[in-house]
C-alpha cells in the first residue's frame, strides 16, 4: 500500500484498488463503509479519553495546581480508570420512567455526533463524506442532538430534570441560529457550501485574515455561540453543580452517563473542527498570497498536523472561557442571544456582502 503523508488520497486509492481486486463492486463498498465506521468509533473513543485528560490538566494549570498525577505516568491513565469505574456502576432506572425513551436518549445524541463527524475533513484526501452541501448538512445534523436532550429530561420522570432539559433545549435551539449565521458570513466569501471547496479557497490565506473585520467579528460570535451550543463554559447552567439539580442527566448512571459525558466532549471537538475548517483553513497550511518561500516552508508540515493543531487551539480557547468566567443565568443567556448576538450577526452579514460585492477583501 502506498502511503504519502501529504496526500492521503494515495492511500485510499490503493486500498480501494486492492479491495476491488479481491471482491465485487457492492462488497467493496460495504467493506469500505465498515472500515470507516470502525475507524470513527475508535477515533471517538480515543479522542474522548484524551480530551477528558487534557481538560483536567489544563484546568489544573489555570488553577496553579498539578491535576491528576497518580494513575499512570503523570496521570495519563486517569480517564481509563474513570471509564472502568463508570462501567461498573449499577444502571438504575427510576420508577415509572418511560423505559424505552430513557434508554434511547443517550443513543440519539451519540448518533447525531457520529453523523456530524463523518463530514469533517481531517487531511488532504482523508474526508469520509464530501457532500456538496457540507456545512448545511452538519448544522442540520447537530440539531438532532436537541431531541436526545429533551427525551432524557422527559423520560427521567423527575421534575427537576425536566426543568433542566427545557432550559438546555431552549439554549441549544437559540444558539444554533448564531452558529449558522456566523458560518454564513464566510460562505459569502467562499461561494460554496462544500467543505473541500471551502478549504481550497483558503490556499492563498485563511479567511480569518483575508476577510478582516467582518470575518473577525464572525469568529468571535462563532466562538461564543458554539460554547453555548455545546452546553459548556459560562453557559452550563443546565448542568451546573452548584445549582439545584444536575440537569437533564441527573437520573443516569453507569454507561449511559458515560455516553452523555463523552458526547459533550465530542460535540466540543466537532464545533472546534468546523471553526478551524471555515475560519482557519482546515488542513491548509498557513499561506500568505505572494510569499512563495514562506509558503513552501509552511507546506513542509503535513496537513493532518495542521488540522489537529488548529482544532486544539480552538479547544484550548473554549477551555479558557470555561475556567475563567462565572455562569450566566438562563434569562441573561437568552437575552445575550436574541438582543445582542443576533442583530450583530445580521448586520455583519450585510457588511460582508457589501464588502464582497465591492471586492474589498484580500
Amino acid at each position, binding site marked *: 500500500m502506498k502511503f504519502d503523508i501529504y496526500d492521503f488520497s494515495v492511500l485510499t486509492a490503493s486500498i480501494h484498488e486492492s479491495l476491488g481486486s479481491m471482491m465485487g463492486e457492492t462488497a467493496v463498498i460495504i467493506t469500505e463503509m465498515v472500515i470507516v465506521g470502525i475507524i470513527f468509533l475508535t477515533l471517538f473513543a480515543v479522542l474522548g479519553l484524551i480530551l477528558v485528560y487534557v481538560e483536567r490538566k489544563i484546568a489544573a494549570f489555570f488553577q496553579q495546581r498539578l491535576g491528576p498525577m497518580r494513575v499512570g505516568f503523570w496521570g495519563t491513565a486517569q480517564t481509563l480508570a474513570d471509564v472502568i469505574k463508570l462501567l461498573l456502576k449499577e444502571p438504575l432506572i427510576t420508577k415509572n420512567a418511560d423505559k424505552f425513551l430513557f434508554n434511547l436518549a443517550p443513543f440519539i445524541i451519540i448518533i447525531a455526533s457520529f453523523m456530524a463527524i463523518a463530514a469533517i475533513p481531517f487531511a488532504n484526501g482523508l474526508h469520509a463524506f464530501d457532500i456538496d452541501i457540507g456545512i448545511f448538512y452538519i448544522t442540520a445534523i447537530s440539531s438532532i442532538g436537541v431531541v436526545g436532550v429533551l427525551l432524557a429530561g422527559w423520560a427521567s420522570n423527575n421534575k427537576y430534570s425536566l426543568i433542566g432539559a427545557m432550559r438546555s433545549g431552549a439554549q441549544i435551539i437559540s444558539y444554533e441560529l448564531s452558529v449558522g449565521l456566523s458560518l454564513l458570513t464566510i460562505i459569502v466569501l467562499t461561494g460554496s457550501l462544500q467543505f473541500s471547496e471551502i478549504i481550497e479557497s483558503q490556499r492563498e490565506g485563511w479567511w480569518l485574515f483575508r476577510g478582516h473585520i467582518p470575518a473577525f467579528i464572525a469568529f468571535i460570535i462563532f466562538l461564543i455561540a458554539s460554547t453555548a451550543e455545546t452546553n459548556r463554559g459560562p453557559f452550563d447552567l443546565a448542568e451546573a453543580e*452548584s445549582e439545584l439539580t444536575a440537569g437533564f442527566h441527573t437520573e443516569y448512571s453507569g454507561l449511559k452517563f458515560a455516553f452523555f459525558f463523552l458526547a459533550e466532549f465530542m460535540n466540543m471537538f466537532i464545533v472546534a473542527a468546523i471553526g478551524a475548517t471555515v475560519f482557519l483553513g482546515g488542513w491548509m497550511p498557513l499561506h500568505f498570497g505572494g510569499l512563495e518561500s514562506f509558503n513552501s516552508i509552511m507546506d513542509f508540515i503535513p496537513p493532518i498536523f495542521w488540522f489537529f493543531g488548529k482544532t486544539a487551539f480552538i479547544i484550548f480557547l473554549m477551555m479558557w472561557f470555561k475556567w475563567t468566567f462565572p455562569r450566566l443565568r438562563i434569562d*441573561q443567556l437568552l437575552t445575550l442571544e436574541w438582543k445582542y448576538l443576533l442583530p450583530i450577526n445580521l448586520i455583519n452579514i450585510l457588511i460582508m456582502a457589501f464588502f464582497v460585492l465591492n471586492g474589498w477583501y484580500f
Partner: protein
Amino acid sequence: MKKEVVNEMKEQEYFINMGPQHPSTHGVLRLLLSLDGEIIKNVEPHLGYIHRSIEKMCERDSYKMIVHLTDRMDYLSCHMNNEAVCLSVEKAIELEVSDRVKVIRTIMSELTRLSSHQLWWGVMGMDLGAITSFLYGFRDREMITDIFEETCGARLTMNYNVPGGVMFDIPDNFQTKVKEFITHFRKKLPEYDDLLSNNIIFRSRTEGVGVLSKEDAISYGVTGPSGRASGFSCDIRKQNPYSAYDRVDFKEILYSTGDCFARYKSRIDEMWESMSIIEQLIDNIPEGSAREKTRAVIKLPKGEFYQKVETARGEFGVYIVSDGKKSPYRLKFRSPGFSTLNALNTMAKGSKIADLVAIMSTIDLVIPDIDR
C-alpha cells in the same frame, strides 16, 4: 366549574428543599423554598443540624477553657471570637493588659479578617461558576495560615488569646513575614478585581439582586459588611473601640445601594483597609509583657458582663452572667449570622433560584456560628 379549574391552576406553588447537603449553603443549612415556577415566594431556614451545645458546655468549664470552644463557632474569625471572651473576662476582673498585648491582638484580628475575606471571595466565585477563583483565594490565604502556624501552632482553631494576654510571645520573624505577606497581597488584590469585580457577567448577576434597605438592615440587626453595604453604620471598631483600634486610622466602608454587588464591594474594600491597619501597627509593636499574671483559676465577681467585637461577619457579642464561681452561670453568644439569616427572606423574595445562590454567598454565612 370554571372557578374550580382556575383555583386549581393558581396553586402552582411547590416546595423544594435546598437540603442540608448542598454545595452552596456553606454548611449544613436546610432552606425550604416555596416556588412559583422560577420565582421564589418564601424562604424558610431550618437550623440545628450542627448544634453542639457550646453554651451549655461553657457552664461547666472554667473561663480559660471557654476560649477554645469559641474557636469552633465561627471558625473563620477565630482570633476575634477568642478576643471577645478574653476582653469580657478582663473587663470583669478589672485586669489591664499591656500595650504589646493590645497591638498583637489587633494585628492577629486583622490578619484573621483578611483570611476570612479571602476564603469568602474564593467561595463566591465558585458558587457563581468561576471555579478558578476558589484556588486563588486559598493560595493567598495559605501565607496567612503559615504565619498563624508559626506563631500559635495551629492553622484553624488557634486558641491563642488567654485572659491576661496571649499564650506565647510572637516569634522573631513575625514582623518580616507579615510585611512580606502584605507586599505580596497588595499585588494580588487587583487581580481579584480583574477576575470578578469588573467582569460583565458577574456584574449582571449581582447588581440589583437581593436588595436590603437600610431600615430593614437596622430592624433585623444585620451588622458587618452586609449591613454597612445597606448604609447602616455599625462598625464597632469605630464606635466602641477596643484593643488598639483607637490608635489606628482607617475608614468605615459604607455603601447605600444594599444589593449583592455593594456587599461584595464592601468586603473587597475592607481588605484594603485591613492591610493599611496592619501596616500602621506592624513596625512599632511596643515592648512589654505578652501575658499578665492571673490566678490559676479565675473567678469572676457576681454580675453581668457584655463585650462585643467586630468579626468578619458582623457584631459578635459575649454575655456572661456570673455568680462568683469558677464557671459562668449562663453564657450567651450573640452571633452575627443568626440575624443575617433572618433577613434572607426579605432579600430573596421575588428573585430566581440562581439569584438565591448569589445572595447566599454575598451575605457570607458560617452555619456553625448560627447553630453553635
